[in-house]
């Protein structure tokens, strides 16, 4: 006599467990649409069609390393003043401070968070993993513009890069995460079970948010 109710309750439990994992893509989609968490697109944007020469916006750059990551990345100018819609280039110098080859991944973030979806990058070293030889120095060019739609109350924004050392991780699976377009759905997932789950989750996120 208890079985029908029991079955429903067990289904509810399983559903809520699945829901916890569904929160992950939902969260990213929500943040993507609303631009709430300052996450920036990791894919190249198109140049702007419009310009707004009457407005000035200050854009600053900072970088910091995560944990023990042995990298140093510096923007040539600490701050630039731009007009919305105008393509701007900023040079960055990067250095591997360690005595061995390492792979660096830079993760950009914009504050205020609301400004994230109005900052468009055409070229960025953060789009790819950067393999760097021991003590190698590299230079990168960031090409970006600020959207003309940027809300009027935002007059200055900061683009912050966090530098991660991802050498010890499965580089292929990583690449699949960050550039799903370059890979087919399953190629990079490899045999590593957990990474394949995650790759799938992320492909889903990208799939949903970029059509």
């Amino acid at each position, binding site marked *: 006599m208890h079985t029908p109710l029991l079955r429903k309750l067990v289904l509810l439990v399983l559903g*809520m*467990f699945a829901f*916890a*994992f569904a929160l992950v893509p939902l969260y990213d989609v929500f943040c993507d649409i609303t631009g*709430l968490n300052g996450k920036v697109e990791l894919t190249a944007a198109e140049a702007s069609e419009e310009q707004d020469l009457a407005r000035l916006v200050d854009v600053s750059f900072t970088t910091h390393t995560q944990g023990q990551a042995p990298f140093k990345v510096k923007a040539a100018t600490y701050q630039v003043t731009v007009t919305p819609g105008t393509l701007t280039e900023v040079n960055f110098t990067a250095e591997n401070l360690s005595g061995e080859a390492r792979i660096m991944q830079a993760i950009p973030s914009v504050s205020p*968070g*609301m400004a994230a979806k109005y900052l468009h990058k055409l070229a960025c070293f953060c789009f790819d993993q950067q393999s760097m030889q021991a003590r190698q120095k590299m230079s990168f060019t960031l090409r970006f513009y600020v959207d003309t739609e940027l809300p009027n109350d935002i007059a200055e924004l900061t683009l912050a890069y966090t530098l991660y050392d991802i050498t010890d*991780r499965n580089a292929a699976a990583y690449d699949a995460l960050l550039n799903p377009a370059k890979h087919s759905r399953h190629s990079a997932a490899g045999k590593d079970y957990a990474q394949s789950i*995650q790759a799938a989750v992320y492909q889903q996120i990208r799939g949903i948010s970029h059509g």
Partner: protein
Amino acid sequence: MTSSTQQAALDQEHDHGHHGPATGIKRWLFTTNHKDIGSLYLLFSLLMFLIGGGMAMVIRAELFQPGLQLVDPHFFNQMTTVHGLIMVFGAVMPAFTGLANWMVPMMIGAPDMALPRMNNWSFWILPFAFLILLASLFMEGGGPAFGWTFYAPLSTTYSNDNTALFVFAVHIMGVSSIMGAINVIVTIVNMRAPGMTWMKLPLFVWTWLITAFLLIAVMPVLAGAVTMVLTDKYFGTSFFDAAGGGDPVMFQHIFWFFGHPEVYIMILPAFGVISTIVPTFSRKKLFGYASMVYATSSIALLSFIVWAHHMFTTGMPLAGELFFMYATMLISVPTGVKVFNWVATMWRGSISFEVPMLFAIAFIVLFTLGGFSGLMLAITPADFQYHDTYFVVAHFHYVLVTGAVFSIMAAAYYWLPKWTGYMYSETLAKWHFWLSLISVNILFFPMHFVGLAGMPRRIPDYALQFADFNALISIGGFAFGLSQLLFVAVVFKCIAGGQRAPAKVWDGAEGLEWEVASPAPYHTFSTPPEVK
């Protein structure tokens, strides 16, 4: 239980073909009897309360004076973490499950819980969860030290290898409480005695039904969160790691989506207990029964849309801050309805102040005080200052210790004679009450002040200007801790014997549980009672 009363109970029931309890350890290991399992839960919870309390004593001893003296900071962090985990999952939640096991079937006129074998399992996996958690404290590297909220990346990047044990323990606790909740729901929905309609259910049963749904809704989310921590830490995923495209702030969203309903899981059954005790000793019917049911349901529903009040300082946009601020404040409306109803029940009642009533009245006053500090924390701009200070610690100890724990003690003093068949020593119990009441306020009230002045929580050392208050708080803490030994004494003396308790222990009490003998026979309501 003496053998003679048990025998009497058995004789009564023999025509239904029932058997009494098995003897020795096997009775407890294999029991499927709701009363046995209820007792196991309650005794387990008492043990956890003492162990968790011991950890609180370590914390207060270290904080007695500024500077680092007794324990090293890493061990201090383990103490705050495991104290929180044990009190939430080991003391408060199992105590309420124990009360549900004992009382729900008796209150609705059912012979037992609906799924007795599952009931046995849901209890017996619990000790293993806590054994694992406690054992990790003694392993190399120590136990969890990232706070009971296990925020990533503290629990992922910066935790030690024993974190897997923590995750496993939380999984077991989750499975246990989900099974317990399913059992409660099936029992209440399917096994009510004829005539026990929904709007006749005792409020303790109502609040537990709603709590059980909350448990089913959010314990799986907690299980999901610890699983993600596990795979992030050991299997290279990056749910919460920005380097792989994850987001540590998302951890907080998932955790508090569980966490806020969880705090109501710990307080709704308390509301049920208080709604049972206050009418008994006011000798009046509960004021506003229907509004109590609706208020409890609205609190439960609202609890799903306020989680980010724990995250005001994570950089949410203004619209989000405002939404969560107003939604949080909205909860105080149904909560206020409940407090109003309790006071209105006492209004012009012929009140007497037996120990359960003393704890119930203390609950009403002090829980409300905790609600007020909650409202202060809900004011977003104010929370920027209060967040992560001792003010928050004061808030949740008022709602959890003088709220949830006091209600559990009220319930124990209310039903202990029904469980054991003996009256406890009221003198000793009154000492326990007054000592607890005074010491608990010395312990937690000054935390408001040091919190407002900026003393951060979860830190083993503090600035000199907080020294006097902290010494006072620690003294209150030791006194409160020692007072609880009185409670242990009262309970075990009462189990051992004493003055015989009548079937209806309190003259103003109502409900089916008072229609059976004291101690309640091993099997009750094998034939359903008539409910008018």
